[in-house]
Each structure stands twice: as C-alpha cells, then as structure tokens.
C-alpha cells in the first residue's frame, strides 16, 4: 500500500516533534515504558515540559532530575509499589533544587482524562472521589448533576498532550502499531495527543501486521513517526522480548537518594551515550543475559480467506 513511510531515528523524531514547554505523555504501565525516548528528550535538553504519566517511576525521576519537567500530571508517585522517587520527593518536599508543580489524580482519573482526550469530549464521569480530599487539592476534578435524576457525579477533564510517546513490540513502516501483554492506557494516551511517536522493538513487513489486524492498537492514521529501537523499554520490559531488569530498579533507590549520584548516572548513561544501541552495548551482554526470556508463542487464529466460487 502506498502509505507514507514514517520510519525515522530517535533523535530526528524527538527533534521534529518535542519542543520546550509542551505537554508530553510517555505511557506504559510497568510494561513497555519508553525509556529510550525519555533519554533522548534529556539529551536534547528539552525543558519546561508538562509531563503526563500515570506512574511516574524511574523515568520521571530521571527526566525531572535532568531539568526537563516543570509540571507533573500523574496518579502514582513511586517506583512500583515499593521504592520512593527521591528526585520527585526532594522537589515536592523541599523545592530542592527547584519546585515541581504536581497535578494529581487517581489511576482511573488519569485513564478517563486520556479517554476523554482521545474521544474529543470535554470530560468523562467516574465513580471515585465522593468524600475524598483529592478534589480539594486538585480543582480540575469537578462535579456534574446527573440529568437522569441520580446523584451528582465527579468528572475529570480531557487531557490532550501535544505529543504522546509509546513503546511497542512492532509496527510496519506506515505506522500500524501492534502491542501485546499489558497495554495499559496507551491507546487512549496516543489518540488523545496531537502527535504520536511510536518506538518499537522491531519494524516488520506489513504482511506481519496484516495477518492479525485485531492486534493493531494504533492504526497508521494515529501515528506520526516510527522509531525502531530494540531494547527501548529497558530497564522495564517488552513482553516476549526481554524481561524487567529488577536489579536495576533496586539499584535506582540509592542513586535517586543522592542527587549528585543521580546526576553522575545521567551523565554516564544518558548524556555520554549517543543512542540506545550504545546504551545496550555499555550495559553489556552479561547483564542482558539476566533479562532474556524463552519463547512462548501464541497459538495462531484463522482469519479466513474467501473462496473464489468458480
């Protein structure tokens, strides 16, 4: 099919679409976190971002420490259910080295914000927040009267990022993106955005994509740029490609606790490596061996082909 070829490299994609002061979402719920794209944003010294991410974990800590982020829009401020994000805490608790604006929702509040943005409606209702202090902390959580006579219900406003970046297992050159395992709110976060960058483990022939159209989470019309970036989710994981680097997550806590150590880490692992390939080489084959996974293929389904009645 004569669709535009959207494959580009990471530096070009970020340079073309991400600008100082933009509202940018990088999504991925534990899985397929677009770390490589976040590191490129750091390398390009983009600043003043409103950074949207349900679970601002290590990636947020890194981007905030690097000075990219003015405002954080999020629903869970921790590394998984465990580790603190010390850069986030330093800024929120002590404005050290600078304050950080925080706009806080619950998980489903964020999901509904993306969904409203993706659907082009101004708000969506949800059954959370009755009796909560969250609407007092965050005046963007509001109430509407139910026109069918039920009780009032809280609503959250549409979130419409300038750019959403997601990482996925594969895409074809025209930007049909396929993803499996935990898919989180990526479809919503992407459709909510004006521009979408998809980084993928693998750019595949369109026949691969077209053999299973139900697997396409983002059709090409929703995607502006495709970047082939194997290992782009490390230290998070890509189902079927490599596992989470749990050791790295544990190593992060002491790094994050000491701002100088954090800045040294950024220098060594982000600024001093030109791209993800160099990062993986620096990480080394031995470390990679610890996150390697064995195959466990899905059983194919049949889409069928019309018989030509002669």
């Amino acid at each position, binding site marked *: 099919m*004569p*669709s535009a070829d959207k494959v580009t490299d990471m530096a070009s994609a970020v340079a073309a679409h991400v600008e100082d002061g933009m509202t940018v979402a990088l999504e991925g719920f534990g899985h397929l976190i677009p770390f490589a794209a976040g590191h490129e944003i750091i390398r390009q010294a983009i600043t003043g971002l409103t950074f949207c991410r349900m679970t601002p974990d290590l990636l947020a800590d890194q981007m905030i420490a690097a000075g990219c982020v003015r405002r954080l829009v999020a629903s869970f401020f921790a590394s998984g259910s465990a580790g603190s994000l010390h850069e986030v805490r330093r800024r929120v608790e002590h404005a050290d080295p600078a304050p950080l604006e925080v706009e806080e929702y619950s998980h489903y509040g964020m999901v509904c914000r993306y969904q409203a943005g993706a*659907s082009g409606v101004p708000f969506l209702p949800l059954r959370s927040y009755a009796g909560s202090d969250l609407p007092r902390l965050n005046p963007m959580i509001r109430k509407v009267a139910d026109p069918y006579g039920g009780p009032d219900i809280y609503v959250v406003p549409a979130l419409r990022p300038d750019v959403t970046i997601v990482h996925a297992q594969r895409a074809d050159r025209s930007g049909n993106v396929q993803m499996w395992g935990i898919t989180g709110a990526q479809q919503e976060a992407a459709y909510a955005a004006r521009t979408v960058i998809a980084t993928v483990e693998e750019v595949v022939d369109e026949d691969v994509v*077209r053999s299973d*159209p139900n697997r396409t989470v983002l*059709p090409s*019309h929703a995607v502006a740029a495709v970047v082939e970036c194997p290992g782009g989710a490390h230290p998070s994981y890509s189902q079927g490609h490599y596992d989470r680097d749990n050791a790295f997550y544990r190593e992060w806590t002491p790094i994050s606790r000491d701002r100088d150590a954090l800045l040294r880490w950024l220098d060594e692992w982000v600024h001093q490596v030109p791209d993800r390939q160099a990062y993986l080489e620096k990480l080394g084959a031995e470390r990679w061996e610890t996150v390697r996974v064995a195959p466990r293929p899905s059983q194919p389904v049949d889409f069928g082909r*019309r018989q030509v009645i002669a």
Partner: protein
Amino acid sequence: MTSQALGAEALSDVAPSSTEFLAAVAARHLVGKQRVFAGVGLPTLAVDLARRTTNPDVELVYESGICGAQPEGLAEGIADSVLVSGAAAVLGMPALFGYVLQRGHVDVGFLGAAQVDRWGSLNTSLIGNWDTPTARLPGAGGAAEIMPNAGECVVVLRRHDPGALPAELDFCTSPSPVRAHAEDPRMVPPGHGVSTVITPMAVLRRPDKLGELVVSEVHPGLTVDDVRGATGWDIPVADDVRETGRPTVEEVRLLREEIDTVRLYLR
C-alpha cells in the same frame, strides 16, 4: 485496451444518472483527501476509482472498525469478512467512533439520505409524521456522528426532486452546523457538514460552513432551470456554475472491468 487506445482523456457518454457517472463525479471530490469514512456501494466504487486515478493514498475507514482494508474480493456490506482479512487494523466501536471519528481523524464522510435540505441537514429516519410515519427509514446509524465530526460530508442522492430535496425535512436525523448553531452557537461542531451533494441532475455545493447549498455543476443535457425546478426550495446558483465533467472512458472501464466486474453496485 480499445478504450485506452482512445486516450485517457476521451470522455464517456454514460448517462448522468448512471452509477458510473455518479461514482466518477464523487471520486473527483477525493483529490487531496486522506481518510474517507463510508459505507459500501457507490462510495466504495468512488474511493476505489480515486485510488486508481487521482489519489493512490486515499484510505477507507469503515463504521465496522476496519482501517486499511486490502480486500481480495468485492465487499458486500461494511462488515464483510473480506475487508477484515489482511486489514491493517480492526478496532472496537468505542475506539472507532470515539477515537477515530470524534477525535477528528476522518476527512470526508460519504452519506446517503432520503432527504437533504438547503443547509445540508439530512433525514434518514422517517417520512410523514413522527408517530405514524408513512415510511419508517433505517434511522441514524453512524451518520449522526459522521456529520459533526468528519472534516466534510459528501452526499450522493439517487433522486433529484422536491421529495428528496424538500424545503422542510420531515425529520432531521443528521443536522447541519447551521441547525447546531440555531440550537446553541457554542455547540457548532468541528466539521463543515455537507460540502457537496451529488444527484442525478447536478452537483450542489455548500461553500460556507453556516451557509446554504448552491447549484455548482449541472449534468450534461440539463439546464440550471431543470435543476432549480426539481429542487424543493428556491436554490441559488453559483456565479461560476458549469456543466459537470463527464467521466472519462478510462474511468468507466476501470469501474466496469476492474472494480466491479460482477456489477454488484453498478446499475
């Protein structure tokens, strides 16, 4: 081959009321458009023709959730299995109507209607009075969503008479932005509404989002007065009104010999 020997520019003499004529006129309106939302039938023919002539990149999105179909056969209906096999994506309806359509990813919506009024509002619900209609029509389907959300809408009518183009709709299923404006000026939707109505007699255009239809092209063999006489209101005529360009011989050949060889939609 004979027809190609005549040159691609040679014009066909198919009747202006024929499917071939209407499809070729519709295809011309797709120049420069990216994504078209359509049912099957005449819109499918028009999109397929555009793809083979003026706009190889034009893409069809179906209400059934299918994007980027590459059917191995001619589809009977928007939910045909041949549209699914080998498609680029199949989305559920919340994503299709919410994320694709309502978020503004569709440039052109192709619609049919029983009635179109001067503002490009459509009736696909009923003829007669609301409680006991003389004819119960299919209803809104997705048209009520396509009208406000597609960049513009093209309507193809099989009739051109005051019944199909009345002064007043019996029911407004899919409102023009003009009607939305009348309800509440702040509720005017993002889409232009109907930009073009293609009938067996003429091409009507609505250049202004809050304006009305004007006679823009008159099919060969007919006069502006023929068109105005068959329209249910006193329809204005464009300053630059002209004769509708005939399809080329090659366009008709493509429709008959490559696109709809079994004459499923060609009539």
